[in-house]
């Protein structure tokens, strides 16, 4: 068999995301180097996730700083076409907050809720507490009792937006957060959020 490096990198990355999606609120670390980082502003972890999940069969868009630059880079890297926010399978929030744009994301239909978008937030730092304080408390599938999270840098209304979008389960979006230390945390639509 061919030992294909890309195949191994994406497999490892996928397994971390899968664990994170299965355990909402828990922080996991992506262990490998992505090798593609042409600008300091680019998140290495983000590129790992995108290489693992994006291709020409889905569409994406970027909200936030360096929108055009990132859209071009990502499209070239993955072959994934850029789409309008209301039609994108993946939405990348490059600057910690969407300023309400995220409310336009696709939420899926009752028959096919899986067509709801996946949103990837690039944030500063992920933890269970920040300065001794959590920003939110999560409950739901994948969480034993409850878990607290702290997302440094995330826009203050962002969690409320997500909560609003996901208020009509099974419709909604599934969120992946990636921080500057290549750490990842997920909030799928099945998670109930209590903002502190």
């Amino acid at each position, binding site marked *: 068999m061919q030992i294909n490096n890309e195949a191994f990198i994406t497999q490892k990355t996928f397994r971390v995301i899968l664990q994170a999606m299965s355990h909402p609120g828990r922080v996991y670390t992506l262990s490998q180097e992505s090798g593609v980082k042409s600008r300091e502003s680019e998140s290495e972890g983000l590129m790992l996730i995108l290489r693992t999940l994006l291709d020409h*069969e889905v569409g994406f868009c970027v909200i936030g700083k360096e929108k055009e630059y990132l859209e071009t880079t990502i499209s070239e890297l993955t072959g994934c076409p850029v789409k309008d926010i209301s039609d994108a399978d993946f939405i990348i929030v490059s600057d910690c907050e969407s300023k309400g744009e995220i409310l336009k994301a696709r939420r899926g*239909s009752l028959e*096919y809720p899986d*067509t709801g978008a996946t949103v990837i937030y690039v944030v500063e730092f992920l933890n269970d507490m920040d300065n001794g304080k959590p920003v939110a408390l999560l409950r739901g599938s994948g969480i034993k009792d409850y878990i607290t999270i702290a997302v440094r840098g995330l826009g203050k209304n962002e969690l409320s937006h997500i909560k609003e979008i996901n208020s009509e389960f099974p419709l909604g979006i599934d969120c992946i957060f990636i921080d500057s230390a290549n750490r990842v945390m997920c909030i799928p639509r099945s998670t109930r959020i209590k903002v502190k």
Partner: protein
Amino acid sequence: MGYVAVKGGTEAIENAGKLLTYERIKGNSEPLGVEQIKEQLNFLVDRVMGEGSLYAPDLAALAIKQSAGDTFEASFMLRAYRTTLPRVGYSIPKSTKEMRVIRRISAAFKDIPGGQILGPTSDYTLRLLDFELLNDSKGKREECIRELFKDIEPPAFSLQPFPESFPRVIEVLRKEGLLAEAVGGKQPAVNNQNGIFDMTRQSLTFPASRSAAMQTMARGETGGLLLLAYSNMRGYGDIHPTIGELRVGYLPVKIKHPHTSKPYTIGEVKVTEAEVIAKFTAKNKKPKFTLGYGLCFGHNETKAISMAVLDRAMQAEEPKMASENKEFVLSHIDGIESMGFCNHYKLPHYVTFQSDLDRLKKAQEETRAESLESGVRDEV
């Protein structure tokens, strides 16, 4: 002992495979050449290519040899091989006007533009066993071919040049405004990529688009398609088809040249195309004929006509019969899937059966009945 799991089976599986080969090779006759299969069992090769959804006569012939003529197994091998091939690109959609026709008939009109061409068909042969074939030989074949072409002048000297392309019969109807363009039925918006559904990449969901339906039927099992189409023809449905045109021939396959982007012909595929004209609708006030379309790999008229009939049947606005129900038709015509599932019942089901036994015993205790005729839920 009774029902326990079949274990330690590694050696047994390998020996079973060897025995299967032995059954194919144990006779005294000459080994069957792939070339022979390709050239002399052409209908079988065509069928396997269609159901295996890979146009590769040599590989299909190999699969037929390896599977000892089991069409399900042969198509399956072709389909499994197909998945491992990289996708290089998409061909450019082309009108079948460009078909290099070897057979072309219409049941709707006696005279059609370009004329009827009977071509190779068994339609008017007497199905009598030809015992002469028992003494087949190369010499006899050559003689037969000489006999066949002896009175035919080479095309260069014939009076009428062979036309480059044939106008389609239904175009005549279309020009006169007798044809309804798209018949009702719900057209879904979901799961469309670049306007055309790709059933090798996407999961069929319902309501299915027409392109999804066409692709599913094109790789469907001939017998399965025929069964459903026949049910409609007999009366479980009422589209009353007339064959507007049936064509067999070779279609050029064109792709965009990767550098120049100009169309570039990479080869041709033999196909059978059927267009059936069916009962008219009165939608939008003016009554018009409706159309059903079928196209499949190789020379397989039964399949193309069945496809066309089902295509039309599935456009029913209020499906009542099995053949009119898109979900029913498209979910049950794939030979590879249905064959696989049918045969999986040979796998052990000890656990589910144990579970059912427990329920049955309990139910018997509860009802104190002597025996129960039914009630055990069919399980996998």
